[in-house]
């Protein structure tokens, strides 16, 4: 896209939730089934307005729970309709059973999850404990950094999920409040360009009146392994499709996100932080500052948690001196869930790299630039052979 065209783009000042709704509108879903929950509500409010004003031609189901939101989405998807829903936190947990039904039956539903902690202690603010607890639900999970990426990933997600070699649902994760309720200037793609990039949903995995089908059926022990293998294979296929879709997207819309991961000053970095979601934006500022001081630091923005970029981290383990992983989550009895996965991949080829897990940004607590700078200095310390605690609760009062 030329510079002149870029100047002519349609930009709006939007919150993350509003950006998501704009993205959904552009994708022309046939059916939306949703139940409100903070901080996702603005998405479903906006979509309701679009449907009411006929800006969207779509069946909007006001369901009575998140479990039903996902069940209704599944019912619509098996009829061959493109569907959308959004949730958060307790709502995600409430629909947990249905997440497995949808992924096991291979319906490419797109859902936005406004990341929020889970009770108890109850609150409405953000961390990744909701989505990470659904790691094994068979859904793809992508984490975005800002409103623009949220909008763009709605469009990309339909293309990835509906690819016949993938045919797997996807959860777009958007940090609660920090992204959902924060306004920024967002570029809105042209409808005709989106229509060309994302044709109407077409699948063989739907009911057929000429040749009736049983979908979402029972399978005995004799066949379960084969169906699970197909799900495994689909996620492996997705790794390639994710890269291809991002490339194609950049050619049409002029923005690229790097697919599975985005690297920031990693090529020569000794000390690397791995982070998901909005904190990546702050971390980039800290990297810039430390680079000016001559520190060889970098950031890996982990975009896709499932499928997981194992191959990427295998290579990173050979290059870096120390890698820190920020988890807005902890798996009690072990460590941060993201850390476990990153560490396993880093070391899978016997790399000599030091690692630290930073448990930070729990339940909406800010991860400040000062905290991030401290994380880099901890990485430098462990890289220089100092003894450093492996699991660190950033900003902890009681110690």
């Amino acid at each position: 896209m030329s510079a002149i065209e870029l100047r002519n783009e349609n930009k709006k000042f939007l919150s993350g939730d509003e950006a998501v709704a704009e993205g959904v509108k552009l994708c022309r879903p046939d059916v939306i089934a949703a139940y409100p929950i903070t901080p996702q509500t603005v998405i479903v409010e906006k979509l309701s307005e679009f449907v009411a004003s006929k800006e969207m031609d779509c069946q909007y189901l006001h369901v009575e729970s998140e479990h039903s939101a996902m069940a209704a989405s599944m019912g619509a998807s098996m009829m061959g309709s493109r569907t959308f829903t959004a949730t958060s936190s307790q709502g995600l947990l409430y629909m947990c059973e249905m997440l497995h039904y949808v992924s096991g039956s291979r319906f490419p539903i797109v859902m936005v999850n406004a990341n929020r902690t889970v009770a108890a202690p109850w609150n409405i603010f953000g961390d990744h404990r909701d989505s990470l607890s659904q790691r094994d639900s068979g859904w793809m999970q992508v984490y975005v950094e800002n409103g623009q990426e949220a909008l763009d990933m709605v469009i990309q997600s339909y293309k990835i999920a509906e690819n016949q070699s993938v045919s797997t649902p996807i959860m777009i994760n958007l940090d609660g409040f920090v992204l959902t309720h924060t306004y920024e200037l967002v570029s809105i793609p042209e409808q005709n360009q989106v229509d060309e990039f994302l044709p109407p949903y077409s699948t063989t995995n739907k009911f057929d009146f000429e040749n009736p089908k049983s979908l979402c059926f029972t399978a005995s022990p004799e066949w379960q392994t084969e169906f699970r293998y197909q799900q495994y294979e689909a996620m492996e296929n997705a790794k390639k499709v994710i890269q291809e879709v991002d490339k194609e997207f950049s050619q049409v819309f002029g923005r690229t996100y790097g697919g599975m991961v985005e690297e920031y000053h990693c090529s020569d970095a000794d000390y690397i932080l791995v982070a998901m979601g909005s904190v990546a934006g702050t971390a980039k500022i800290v990297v810039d500052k430390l680079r000016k001081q001559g520190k060889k630091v970098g950031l890996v923005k982990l975009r896709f948690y499932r499928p997981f970029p194992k191959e990427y981290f295998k290579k990173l383990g050979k290059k870096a001196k120390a890698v820190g992983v920020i988890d807005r989550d902890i798996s009690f009895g072990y460590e941060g869930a993201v850390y476990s996965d990153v560490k396993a991949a880093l070391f899978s080829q016997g790399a000599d790299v030091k690692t630290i897990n930073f448990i930070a940004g729990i339940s909406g607590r800010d991860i400040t630039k000062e905290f991030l700078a401290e994380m880099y200095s901890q990485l430098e310390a462990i890289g220089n052979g100092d003894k450093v605690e492996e699991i660190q609760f950033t900003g902890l009062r009681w110690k």
Partner: protein
Amino acid sequence: MVSVKNLPDKELFYGHKACQGCGAAIVARLAMKILGERTCVALPASCISSVTTIYPQMSFFVNNMTSSFPATGAVLSGMAAAVKAQGLKEVNVLGLAGDGGTIDIGIQALSGAIERGDDFLYICYDNEAYMNTGIQRSGLTPYGAWTTTTPTNNNDIGEKKFKKNLFEILIAHRIPYAATANVAYPNDLLKKLEKAKGIRGPKVLHILAPCPTGWGYKTEETIEIGRLAVQTGLWYLAEYENNEVTLNYRPKDFKPVKEYLAKQKRFRHLKDADFQVIEEHRDEEWKILERHLRKDEE
């Protein structure tokens, strides 16, 4: 008018593994005869799903799926919304669920779907317990019934609560069409299926489906048992539409409930005093029903 004599020959439900004498299988077969090939069926975990849709077998010869236990109503909503969105014509969206899947775990999704006014038919085949999992009580298990979770002994009569009244719950929703039926009255059942097929919006049929395995009677007695339920007044055949209830059959006098109950092993521990409690409750239920009836029937 549809009757057992002029049903289509085409079978859309066969090759299943239901028990001999299964009342629920009769419901499924007759429903498919009326609804026909352009039907999409959603089944929650239930007897019917577990005897029909085990890969690679398929005993429904129409599009079908097995849903999660609580979700039938919501899945039907999603299907109906897709039918609308895609402008599909003459498609029947059918939910076929058991008593537990309807009155216990499925009641929320069903209530939501009825409230939304989506276009579907929901059939609850009522065999009065969780039969598929091995006879555990549900909210529709009758008073005095033995189940594996309401065991009986000298001091204990088993289930101590009366059946929840699904028909009344449906009436409270002001649903376009609701009816009770019974596999032992097939012409009445077929008429109701056909009527439901012609009405747009949510429709629910609550059908008594005797279960030889769970109730403890001979497999060839399903129809006789079903009839006795109506003749003793423990089941009524009624319809609700346009804010009115119609009684489809009124027994001249109720037979003693003992004639129905004593034929089933699940009630064999009951004594005369228990039969009396059940008859008193039956009479109360009929009084409530009579209050709903149209004036000209009183």
